[in-house]
């Protein structure tokens, strides 16, 4: 029998407004919490009833966009994906993700994470740029080859892994679990030929070498991705490459599109909105 009783919970919220507050401080708000209420719902209620200037990021409300990563009762989680009842506490302490600067209240400055992500080239790198821009066929990949990187592609870039990483807390040079996991995701993709370009960064201080394999990144990932595994596999790839033991294969070949007869009732694609 599900619990349908309303209960009261106290939200402890980390508030901070640059230019006004000297440092972050805690504020408390008591609200009614019906069964099924998520932390994100609770924040909306606090904002509606008590603190109209409270700031946070959220968008999809269903654990897909990765916007609402927060430190909830001491653990990085998605606010939309965390029901208050699962915290098993009448106190809900919410702060911005650690290891990032604070823009305002619960909004972390994710810029360094996305900058590191961009530097590691998280996209397919191939020589056939013309084909990538205007595809005439499909790149050949077997289901087995897909499985080598599939779980890493579930990453939603919420930053929870970066907030949980002990190395991120001390080493500003370290790229962090998300960018490194995504670099490995593309290095493992048989359609990609960019290993040598990413290696330029990965073999130095921005690479995986400072990872202690604490494994916290994988523990907190709301999507079940295992960035710690990606980082260890990346180390193996890079060391094998150094020892000339890495098997180098050319990027997946192009195959013709399926050549069945096109159905006549399929409408034509709309004109391109982006040119150049």
């Amino acid at each position, binding site marked *: 029998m599900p619990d349908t009783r309303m209960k009261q919970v106290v939200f402890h919220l980390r508030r901070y407004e640059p230019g006004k507050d000297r440092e972050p401080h805690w504020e408390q708000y008591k609200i009614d919490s019906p069964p099924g209420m998520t932390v994100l719902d609770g924040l909306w209620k606090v904002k509606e009833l008590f603190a109209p200037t409270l700031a946070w990021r959220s968008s999809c409300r269903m654990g897909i966009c990765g916007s609402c990563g927060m430190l909830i009762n001491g653990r990085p989680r998605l606010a939309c994906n965390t029901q208050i009842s699962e915290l098993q506490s009448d106190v809900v302490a919410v702060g911005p993700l650690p290891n990032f600067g604070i823009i305002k209240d619960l909004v972390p400055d994710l810029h360094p994470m996305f900058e590191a992500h961009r530097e590691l080239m998280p996209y397919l790198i191939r020589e056939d740029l013309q084909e990538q821009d205007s595809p005439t066929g499909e790149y050949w990949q077997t289901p087995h080859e897909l499985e080598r990187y599939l779980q890493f592609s579930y990453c939603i870039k919420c930053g929870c892994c970066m907030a949980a990483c002990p190395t991120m807390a*001390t080493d500003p040079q370290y790229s962090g679990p998300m960018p490194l996991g995504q670099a490995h995701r593309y290095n493992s993709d048989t359609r990609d030929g960019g290993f040598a370009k990413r290696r330029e960064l990965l*073999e*130095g201080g921005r690479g995986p070498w*400072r990872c202690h394999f604490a494994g916290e990144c994988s523990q907190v990932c709301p999507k079940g991705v295992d960035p710690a595994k990606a980082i260890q596999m990346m180390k193996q790839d890079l*060391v094998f490459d*150094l020892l000339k033991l890495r098997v180098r294969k050319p990027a997946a070949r192009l195959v013709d599109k399926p050549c069945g007869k096109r159905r006549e009732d399929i409408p034509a694609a709309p004109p391109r909105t982006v040119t150049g």
Partner: protein
Amino acid sequence: MRDRTLWTWHIFAGAVILVFLGLHMTIMHLNGTFPTFNNPFGGEAESWQNVAARARNLFFTVTYVVMLGAALYHGLFGLRNILLELDPGAGLRRSINVALSVLGLALFAFGAWVAATAPGVVSRMGG
């Protein structure tokens, strides 16, 4: 040198330590395994005659030097990682690298000299 190369050497040094620690444990605690090789005088492996016999053996001299190098590199690289966790600035980071390299080379030179001169020393001491 790039971090990748340093880390690879760190792992190799760890593997070397693993093998040589196994050898050490075999010699010190399994006296009867290869008696004519590591324990020619019988009895305890730590007895003077056995220690002196091993010191005169070229194989053991080489293993001492290799083990010393591997342990020093592995340990000092680990210490460097711990120190860099404290987020020193670029200048201090360079100083840490230089200081640990000098310390490691000095300790290795001293240890290797001891291992290399041990046969003569034990001979003079009647071993």
